[in-house]
């Protein structure tokens, strides 16, 4: 039986404490995230540079998306944004495919009970390491190793080995893209591998044992057990990586020689940053930056809702429905009996 004190405590409503505990999060989030987001939205309907304060409606969107608009450089602005969007997808695709294949292969190997691999812990630690290094430093490191001329490590070493001409790793449009894809893969494959490993380890070992007894080889096991059961985590990895790809900034922005970023590596994030940093604070191109931001936001929202929909907890939803039904029935009964809670 509950004591008097316990009953008294049960009778107190603690709801207000719930609101108090979550209040700081919501206050700060609204102030530093929601309002800036709304403000970005407003800015996307306003002019650029000297025309900063004027309301221009949808013009920024039509300029960057279709090249239509009253400003002189409308076509060029559109071309730049289209190129940035294209670069973003090329760079994302080019690092995601090798990254997921490599990570999946390693994750399957590392979780295979039959394979004897000494130093598994060490390999995991080393392969995850690039992920924690500052991306700005990684960009600087690779620029200084892969510089265009024979004065840099990689080209000098290759030329010692007999290569005739130095390879332009940094300034060549194609090579620099491949470099960014490679570095991005270098940074992220360890992280993806560990995530996929924990997914594979969540699969019941009895499934693999049963398949073994039935004579399935590793390839068959991979395609018929591992891959289908890994699907939720794969979708999650895919979408987080796509959203991460849309944000790609540090590497493409810093992988260059000299003072200005490389137009060949300009991603949407770089485009946004460049536009709201152009000239003085009052004269920056907030309109274009805002419109590009909102376009990215829309893409993210679509991607996000796909994962949200695919990963929703079906059991919990069913239970919730059942509970609500039961509650309704209870209430109806109580009304009939004239009872109050």
């Amino acid at each position: 039986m509950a004591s008097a004190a316990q009953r008294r405590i049960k009778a107190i409503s603690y709801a207000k404490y719930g609101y108090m505990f979550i209040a700081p999060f919501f206050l700060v989030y609204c102030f530093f995230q929601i309002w800036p987001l709304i403000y970005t939205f407003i800015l996307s309907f306003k002019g650029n540079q000297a025309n900063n304060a004027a309301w221009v409606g949808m013009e920024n969107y039509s300029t960057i998306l279709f090249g239509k608009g009253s400003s002189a450089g409308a076509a060029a602005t559109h071309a730049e944004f289209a190129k940035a969007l294209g670069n973003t997808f090329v760079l994302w695709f080019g690092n995601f495919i090798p990254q997921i294949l490599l990570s999946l292969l390693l994750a399957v190997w590392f979780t295979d009970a039959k394979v004897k691999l000494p130093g598994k812990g060490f390999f995991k630690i080393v392969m995850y390491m690039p992920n924690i290094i500052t991306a700005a430093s990684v960009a600087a490191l690779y620029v200084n190793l892969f510089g265009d001329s024979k004065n840099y490590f990689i080209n000098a070493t290759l030329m010692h080995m007999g290569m005739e001409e130095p390879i332009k790793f940094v300034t060549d449009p194609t090579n620099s893209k491949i470099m960014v894809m490679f570095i991005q893969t270098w940074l992220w494959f360890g992280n993806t591998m560990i995530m996929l490993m924990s997914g594979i380890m969540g699969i019941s070992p009895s499934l693999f044992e049963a398949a073994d007894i039935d004579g399935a080889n590793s390839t068959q096991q991979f395609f018929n057990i591992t891959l289908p059961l890994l699907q939720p985590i794969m979708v999650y990895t895919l979408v987080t990586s796509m959203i991460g790809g849309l944000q790609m900034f540090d590497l493409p922005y810093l992988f260059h020689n000299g003072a200005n970023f490389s137009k060949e590596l300009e991603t949407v994030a770089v485009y946004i940053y460049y536009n709201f940093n152009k000239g003085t604070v009052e004269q920056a191109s907030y309109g274009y930056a805002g419109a590009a931001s909102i376009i990215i936001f829309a893409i993210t929202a679509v991607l996000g809702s796909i994962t949200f929909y695919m990963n929703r907890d079906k059991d919990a939803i069913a239970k919730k429905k059942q509970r609500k039904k039961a509650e309704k029935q209870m209430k109806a009964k109580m009304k009939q009996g004239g009872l109050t809670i």
Partner: protein
Amino acid sequence: MSMKEQYGQQKDSYHAKIMAKSIAIMVVCIILTLICLVPIYILIVNATHSNQELVENPSQFFFGGSLKDNLNTLTSKLPDDASKHLRAVARQYSSAFSIGKGYLNSLIIAGFSTVLTVFFSAMTAYGLTIYDFKLSGAAYTFIIAVMMIPVQVSSAGFVRFMYTLGLVNSFIPLIVPAIAAPAVIFFMVSYMKSSFPAEIVEASRIDGCGELRTFITIALPMMKPAIAVQAIFAFVANWNNYYTQNMILKNEKYATVPIMVSKVLAFDKNTDQGVNFLCISLSILPIVVVYFILSKFIIAGVALGGVKE
């Protein structure tokens, strides 16, 4: 052929197959390990060579003896007979890459952000799981929904807003927003749901303990494992955050480590290869050292994040 012989043979070939596979995997893993470590090794090797050595032969594989000279150039501690050129080099590097100041600024930002992130995220998660209130479901759904919004999306408005408030060149826009970390809250809610006994809160109420005190003295210590994991990730993320820092901190006085690295990268005259590599080495040193100390713990944390759905 006897039964034993037959099965023995099959067993042998099975073992041989597994052996071959293990060796192949080992080779691939060693190659990947080299790909991960060699750039870092070459970076450190090059930081110990003088500019002249690196210009004559950029392909250096072994440690040189100029680390101290490079450090002196970087900190502008030159001998009296230093050449005019060396003085210009030293002036350029020491003004853009003042490492003590960079470490301090990065440490202030990452340290305070981490404390705020884990404390307030734990608090929000606690509020959402312990208390039963009308909007708790809606609040949680909101947190999950906004979890994936990239920072870039609101940054144009953010910067302009910070200019209006006069908060540019201030650490406030880099530290205070850390209070609101949806992904960390999500992690902590899952942690609390799986391993936090809610009865303990009731017990503490019976003993007359206030709600906030219950949270701080009883719940927080019990959430230590989750807090530790998230603290490491929050620290690393804030230390490495070039984007927001570069957006807000325009004054050289407030430059953080990533900003300093990007400045060194932009030099186009009076460059010194050795000092360049030294700067990059110094910028990654603290985080790599901390990583190798806490690595097992970090790997376990990444794996936890992977099973969060």
